Structures are given as structure tokens and as C-alpha cells.
């Protein structure tokens, strides 16, 4: 893996290029959150309808395979690329996701990290984790971390940093794969611990960094200081990945602090709820003059296709959207699919939402390259806040 920063925007934000698995991916980039290596709903043959190469990065948790298939079988099948028939895609392993492999700090101990998964609570030791990595052969992987929520004691937080750094050494020592190692950084809501962890990880032989412990109860206001403390401790020439920042505003926070890679948990949650992203690609949500739109159906950035007002709406989700769903189907059809409990509803929504969110990342990159990231972010956040506020008042 190779990475280089191409542009900096005044007031935060960097645009770069990551060469990995035969693709050149522009950052900031979105990694598609998967379940067992495939998207939640989009079948593999439909992946090609998504923008390329933007959609090549697939994130998975090795813990997804704790049941139903053995590591030996995965090895026999040649690892994830072979097993999933996605040889041109880039797989990024992160022990946790924000959907079905959740960090569970209370059961972690000095031997290993603990996760809440559909197969029950699992205690994963570094050696076990590395067995998973070597049989799955991802292009890049984050080391095992002891992620703790914002409210833990100082002592527990310190222990999590100590463990995470020790496990990093264990992971690197037993690494037999060619995948790029992303060293995990924790430290909860304490700036000193975040710095200490980052400085320790920087000393090790890693290709990039995976910032953990976010989206775990910290407030949005305390994030910038924490994120900046971390990224200021990191060398510029290595990519930085983060887990747990979902919403566009959160992504923009991360980008401003110099984070390069994000996950797409947000799309999963939107899709399950029947929501389709509709904010304009320039990010500026026009203030709607008609009050009727400002109800629970839309907040100006997304619409709920389960709502009865779309029953007879024969327009696409978003006029001008180039995605497979908008090119072929109407809101009324998707509303109908939800009504009759057809999974095709989720498939079509996941396609649109993924397409749209990848578009958002492209706009972010362009803003950075133009040097206008700060204005972009401010406009985006403010217009969305106005809308959400108006929607809340109207409700």
C-alpha cells in the first residue's frame, strides 16, 4: 500500500491518494461496511453499478465469520477475495463494526478484547485475531484494540491504551500476511491518553492508523480537540482510518481533523429505516418555502420512503441521480416494496444511498482541492441544522 497527500485545505482537511490492491483510491474515502464481506443487501453482481473505483473499498470484521465457516475452510478457499469472488475489491479488516460486532469493554481483560456479536459475546486474543487475518488475507487490517466508551475511569482508560499498544506488538510480531497494518489508537475522552497512545503507535512499523473509541458516548463538542490531538501526533504521509463517525456532520468533523477513511454504517441505518438521502450534491440544502415538506417525512436531507405520501409518486428518489435505482425505479415502486415487505426495497435503497454518500465524499474531496473545505463544511452543517430544527418545530 502506498499513500500520499495531494492537497491541504486551509482550516483543515486533506486530500490524498491511496494505492492499494491495484486501485488508486482518492481520499477522504468511504469504506463500504459489509456483513461477512458482502454489502448488507446489494448482491455482488450489482456492485458494479456503483461508482468506480470509489466503491472498491469494503470493510468487514473478521469476527463475522466466528460461526458457520472455519478459518481452515476460508484458507482453503484462498481468503476473502477468492471466497467472495471480488478479486478487484479492496478488503479492510477492522475488529469491530458499529452493527453486529460491537466492542464490549466490561468483559475485555488483559488477554484480549471483548465483542458483542450475533454468535454471543466473544473474547478475542491477539493470536486468535491474527489467525483470522492470515486466513482471510485482507489488503489492510487494523490491529486489535481495547476500545472503551467516553465515561470510563482514568485508570480503565489508561489500561486500554497499555493493552492496545501491547496487542499491537503481538499482532505485528505474528503477522504473516502481506496486508498493510493499521495500528489502532485508543485513549477514550482524555487528550493526554490519546496523545500517549498515538505517540506509542507511531514508533511501531505500521502503514497507517486506525482511530478507535469514537461513537462510544463522547459528545460531538469534545471530539475536535481529541481528534486534533491524535492527528497532530501522526506523521503526514500515512493514512488515517476511523470507526464510529457516521453522519455527514461527523464525517466532516473527521475530515477537518485530517482523517482519510470512514465507514458506511450510516447507510445501513438509513436503509433499514426506509430513508433515502436527498441532499443536493453541492451540500447546500435549499430552505424549502413550503411548510408541508417540513414534517417527519423529510428533514431536507433525506426522505422516508415508507411514508404514504409516496404511494403515488412516480418520480425517482432524486431527480438527476445517476444511480441504478433512480434510473429505473420510482418512489411509488419502492414504497410499494416496503408495503409488501419485499427485500428489494432495501436493495434499491442501499444502492441509492451508497451512490449518494460516495458522491458526498467526492464533493468533499473537490472542496479540499479547491481550498474551500471550511466554507463547504460550514454551509453544509448550517443548512442541515436549520432544516432539522425546522422539521423538529413542524413535528
Amino acid at each position, binding site marked *: 500500500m502506498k499513500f500520499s497527500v495531494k492537497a491541504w485545505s486551509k482550516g483543515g482537511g486533506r486530500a490524498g491518494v491511496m494505492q492499494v490492491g491495484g486501485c488508486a483510491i482518492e481520499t477522504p474515502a468511504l469504506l463500504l461496511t459489509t456483513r461477512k464481506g458482502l454489502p448488507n*443487501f446489494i448482491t455482488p453482481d*450489482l456492485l458494479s453499478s456503483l461508482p468506480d473505483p470509489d466503491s472498491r473499498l469494503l470493510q468487514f470484521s473478521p469476527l463475522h465469520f466466528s460461526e458457520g*465457516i472455519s478459518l481452515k*475452510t476460508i484458507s482453503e478457499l484462498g481468503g476473502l477475495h477468492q471466497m467472495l*469472488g471480488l478479486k478487484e475489491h479492496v478488503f479492510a479488516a477492522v475488529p469491530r463494526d458499529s452493527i453486529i460486532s460491537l466492542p464490549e469493554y466490561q468483559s475485555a481483560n488483559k488477554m484480549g478484547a471483548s465483542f458483542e456479536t450475533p454468535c454471543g459475546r466473544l473474547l478475542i486474543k491477539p493470536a486468535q485475531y491474527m489467525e483470522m487475518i492470515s486466513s482471510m488475507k485482507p489488503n489492510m487490517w487494523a490491529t486489535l484494540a481495547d476500545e472503551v466508551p467516553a465515561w470510563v475511569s482514568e485508570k480503565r482508560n489508561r489500561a486500554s491504551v497499555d493493552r492496545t499498544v501491547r496487542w499491537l506488538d503481538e499482532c505485528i510480531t505474528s503477522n504473516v500476511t502481506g496486508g498493510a497494518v493499521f495500528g489502532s489508537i485508543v485513549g477514550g475522552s482524555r487528550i493526554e491518553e490519546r496523545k500517549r497512545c498515538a505517540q506509542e503507535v507511531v514508533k511501531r512499523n505500521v502503514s497507517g492508523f486506525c482511530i478507535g473509541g469514537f461513537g462510544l458516548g463522547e459528545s460531538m463538542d469534545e471530539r475536535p480537540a481529541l481528534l486534533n490531538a491524535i492527528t497532530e501526533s501522526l506523521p503526514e504521509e500515512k493514512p488515517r482510518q476511523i470507526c464510529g463517525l457516521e453522519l455527514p456532520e461527523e464525517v466532516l468533523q473527521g475530515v477537518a481533523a485530517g482523517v482519510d477513511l470512514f465507514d458506511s454504517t450510516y447507510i445501513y441505518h438509513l436503509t433499514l429505516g426506509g430513508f433515502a438521502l436527498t441532499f443536493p450534491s453541492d451540500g447546500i440544502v435549499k430552505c424549502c418555502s413550503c411548510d408541508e415538506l417540513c414534517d417527519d417525512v423529510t428533514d431536507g436531507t433525506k426522505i422516508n420512503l415508507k411514508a404514504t405520501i409516496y404511494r403515488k409518486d412516480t418520480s425517482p428518489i432524486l431527480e438527476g441521480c445517476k444511480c441504478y435505482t433512480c434510473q429505473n425505479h420510482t418512489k411509488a415502486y419502492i414504497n410499494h416494496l416496503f408495503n409488501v415487505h419485499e*427485500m*428489494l426495497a*432495501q*436493495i434499491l435503497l442501499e444502492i441509492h444511498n451508497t451512490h449518494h454518500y460516495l458522491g458526498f465524499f467526492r464533493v468533499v474531496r473537490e472542496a479540499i482541492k479547491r481550498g474551500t473545505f471550511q466554507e463547504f463544511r460550514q454551509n453544509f452543517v448550517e443548512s442541515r441544522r436549520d432544516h432539522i430544527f425546522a422539521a423538529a418545530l413542524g413535528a
Partner: protein
Amino acid sequence: MALRFEILGRFNRARAAQLTLPHFVCQTPLFMPVGTQGTIKGLTTSQLEEIVSYLRYHASPECNHRFLVSLLHLADITEKGVTFQSPVDGKPMLLTPEESIQIQNRIGADIIMALDDVVKTTITGPRIEEAMYRTLRWIDRCIAAHKRPHEQNLFGIVQGGLDPVLRDICVKGLVDRDLPGYAIGGLAGGEDKDSFWRVVAQCTAALPEDKPRYVMGVGYPLDIVVCSALGADMYDCVYPTRTARFGTALVPEGVLKLKHQAMAHDTRPIDQTCECMVCKNYARAYIHCLVTKDAMGSQLLSYHNLFYMMKLSRDLHSSIIEARFPEYVYTLHVVFPEGDVPQWVCNAMEVAGIDISSCCSPFPSS
């Protein structure tokens, strides 16, 4: 009439034809992968086109694939119409024959179905007779209400339960109306297999040669082979997608249960002879770890199962055209499993003029 039905080959009662519809040209025998809600479980139109075009059916670009609309949750039937539960809000709705045609006229499918009075085949007595005569009375109301006969083909549905006399009256009545095609309804509802094939055989013998014959709600691969041997042309059934949701794949040997523990370390594809996207890319072990836990498991299995059914349709078609229909039937493991061929299959094949006596046991095997 808005269709052309050209028979390209025959083997005794079996026929292979080309059916030209306003938006679609297809070859029969044909399994139509169309669900009851105007969609296929979990598959997009482009995936269907992918499956279909691989098998060299020629879909025109504007094809909407909505051949048929049938209604679920039938509740109460009177002379006025059918009261059913709305799939949208669950409220009872009365649907008259006229309205059912109006709705289908609006949707614009190439084939539309008459409203019929459906009774379970396992019911006996005067209700069967009532339903059959009502179906005949309703067909006239449907024909009168049909506003687009030059763009949409109205198929009448033969009812009459398992009673040959009633079936005969119904077929004659419908044939008198000279419809573009005919469906054989009221089957696949739990009747015994010997009764099932006899009704199909009776109806196909009495229906006009030059019109398509569609057996509704069928079915299993074996049923399709037998019905095709008896001269039926079209089928539709939710079985391939429903069984996929329970983790079952259709394979030449019968079925493969992907949930089975042995699949966890099976690195072979579902079916080594299948050329579908799933079999080209995925091992049984991976599908095993998806099935029943993740939506993707049933998605991938549905894809394979529909591909399997379309391939079966195509093979039936080409074997009839190439005058090797019996030879093809012999190769089918679903017809000739390890053990005895089911007696009903032997009986049906005898009527179809396909000599499989060497494979049938001389005495009914229980």
C-alpha cells in the same frame, strides 16, 4: 389477441413454441419467475434480465416483466366479486371481475388473468360446481370489461376441482369464448399427484393446439417436466424463491440443504454444472455461513434457483425441438431418482407417450 404462438417442435403431446408478446418474446416450455406482488423476491429487473438473457430469451428494452398480476389473501367470494385483504393496509376490499380487469389494463402487462372463483382442490361437494359455473359467468364480465384486447392478452382460467365432468364443461365453455390463451387453475393446492396430473392431461387434451396453456402455481421441477410432457407450456410458482429462504438450493440431484452442517467445510459450488453468478463465485461453505442469518444468503440462493428453473425450461424447449425429449427426460435425476420412479410419474409418462417402462417398477411401490 395480442400474441403469436408458433409451435416449433413436438414430441407426442409435448410442444416447444415461440411466444411473441407485445413486450416480450419467449420460448416455451417456460417457467415465469414472477411473484404475486409484481416483483421477484429479492431480485432486481436487471438481475432477471441477466438470468433471462443468459438463456437467450430476448427481452425488449421496455419490457416490464409484469406478466401477471394475481391477488393474495382471498377471503370471501360472492357473485359480485372477491373480497380480499388489501396488501397495503390489510382492510377488506371488494374486487369485481370488471375492476380486476380495469386494474390490469392500467398496469399494462402483456398477459392478464380473468378473475376466477378459486376453491381448494381438497374441498369436495357442490362448492366446486358453483365455483366452476361462476368462473364461466365471470369470464363474460371480464371480456366485456377488457379495454385493451389488442395490447393485452386475457387468459381464462379452467376450474372444476378434480372432477373430470366439471373440468370438461369449464374447458368447453372457455374455448367457446376463443381467448388468446388458457390457464389451468385450482391445482397445486395439496391434491394427490395422481389427481393432479390427470386434470392437467385432461385439460391440455381438450384445449386448442394453437394457444398457450399455462398451469398456475406449478411448481416443482418434476411437476414442470411431467406437465410439459402432457402438453402444457407455461408455469409460475414461488417455490424456487420460497425454498431459497429456507436455505434450499435446486440442483440436478434434487435439492441441497445449505443449512446442513456438512456444508460448513464444503468448498465446492452449489452445483458444479451450473453457470450462474453464484455458482461461478461462491462455495457451499460461504453460503452455509450466510443462510438464515443474513439476508444475502436467501438472495444468492434465489438467484441460483431461478437460474436453475430457467435453464430447465430452456433444456425442455431445446430437447423437444431437437427430437430428443425422452432422452433428456431420462437424464433428469428429479424424474429418475436413485430408487423407484414414483408411480404417478410412470402413469403420467405413459399417457404422454414417453416410454419409461424400463425404469418403472412392475407393481406400484407402496
